[in-house]
């Protein structure tokens, strides 16, 4: 969310030399949200994608307007909930893979569909 900051335009009655050069401060949503109406945020709850650098508690940015290609990390709608997986190809067709040997992959079917493509993961280094 952009919070326009108001720098004083006049210091003790004198105009600021920066007046004509002011720009908005950097806002991370400008970096991470490419298509606002199609962008959503989700919270990672499990460890199935550790190998992809996605940790429990992380925030993921999901863009529904992108087409999912093999190799993309996507949100899948499965079993009445959501999961974050990588779209892969197997001899039987497209599958959703985890980046953690503890988890099995499962196929793309009418019961499992791509909800959106994960474009960014935001990982906090401080608790």
């Amino acid at each position: 969310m952009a919070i326009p900051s108001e720098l004083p335009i006049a210091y003790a009655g004198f105009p600021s030399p920066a007046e004509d050069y002011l720009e908005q401060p950097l806002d991370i949503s400008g970096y991470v949200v490419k298509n606002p109406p199609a962008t959503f945020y989700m919270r990672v709850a499990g460890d199935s994608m550790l190998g992809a650098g996605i940790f429990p508690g992380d925030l993921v940015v999901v863009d529904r307007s992108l087409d999912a290609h093999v190799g993309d990390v996507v949100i899948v709608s499965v079993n009445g909930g959501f999961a974050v997986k990588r779209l892969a190809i197997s001899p039987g067709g497209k599958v959703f893979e985890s980046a953690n040997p503890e988890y099995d992959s499962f196929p793309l079917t009418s019961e499992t569909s791509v909800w959106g493509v994960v474009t960014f993961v935001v990982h906090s280094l401080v608790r």
Partner: protein
Amino acid sequence: MFGHIDCNNFYVSCERVFNPALQGFPVVVLSNNDGCIIARSLEAKRIGITMGQPRFKAERLLREHDIKVLSSNYTLYGDISRRVMDILTTHCKAAEIYSIDEAFVELPIVEKEDLLAFAADLREKILKWTGIPVGIGIAPTKTLAKVANHLAKKAGNGLCCIVTPEAIEAALADFPVEDVWGVGASHAWNLKRAGITTAKQLRDCEDRWVKDRMTVSGLRTVHELRGNVCIPLAERPEPRNEVVVCRTFSQYLQTEESLLPAFAAFANLAAERLRRDKLRAQEVTVFLETNRFNKGPQCHSSVTLELDVATSDTSDLVFYANEGLKKIFQAGHEYKKGGIILSKISPAKFQQTTLFSDAGREDRSARLMKALDEVNATTAELVKFGTEADDSGRAGKAAYLSPKYTTRWADIPEVA
């Protein structure tokens, strides 16, 4: 060329985007206070749940068919609506947001094949980007575009384009006159008595006859049915001419003390809306009602207070709400509903003050309201003003509220 877009079962569709388990199941959404059914999925419609039905009346069907019940999550619906409307605004030449789930657009294209292709693409895009299924009707006027959309819905494919005179003729031939935009129940009744039952028949009526019975706006509707644009796209919303805040209380309120916080809250909310649109009000109407469905003495009382100076200051409006309440409150009644209506609305810019007003107070009030609005914008709970602090008795029940998936960090969906 105009397009009319409307979202299918909008509130239910919003809920399904974030809870895919609801797809394919009967779902209903309840009004404020969980009182009435205001949205139904197709499955719920088929079971026989009617629009606007009080919840308790549908209880048996809800239980028998295991229909999922949700409270209205307007925060979510408003956000999803904004997304859908943004897509329309950026993809079409011009857009008019008509309601939370309906819009008219202007399309620069003229060829039928191109129009259909464009509409199909737009529909797919909205579904993909937001998860919301919509129907699109395209025609040379807004009124005809609504006819087209209606047909699209009935046909089940969500797309309908009526551009040629033959197509329009065929569409209007057995289109019920009461379903024409601008023809309400009472006009429809009068028309049917005169033998007019279809849109085509209405279209073919004489201008003079229509104007006499349906006024000039009815005439505009008829001209639109004929393919003449009489109702242009309104890209900017009309400025408000009143602000209404009213609520049905979740339990009966019988004492003045129990009503004070409610009316303070109404005044606060109304003042917020005024300030958001940079408006002020000079008239405050306060009203109270008993439950009209109960036996026993009924009471609907109201009073209108004229203010010397138009205001949008919360403390002023809370004061007047209290004054009004004191005037109309009568002991011995079980009040079920109440509210305030602000009228004589004017832009905040052009304000006349009286000879006796205190200019310093204006300035202090403006700064206080700005601070109040800033705090309210960043915190989850609205800052409550004095008498409003006590919540009990009139806050809306919302026992089945889904999370605010897109506006609160604590509520965003979890992924395994």
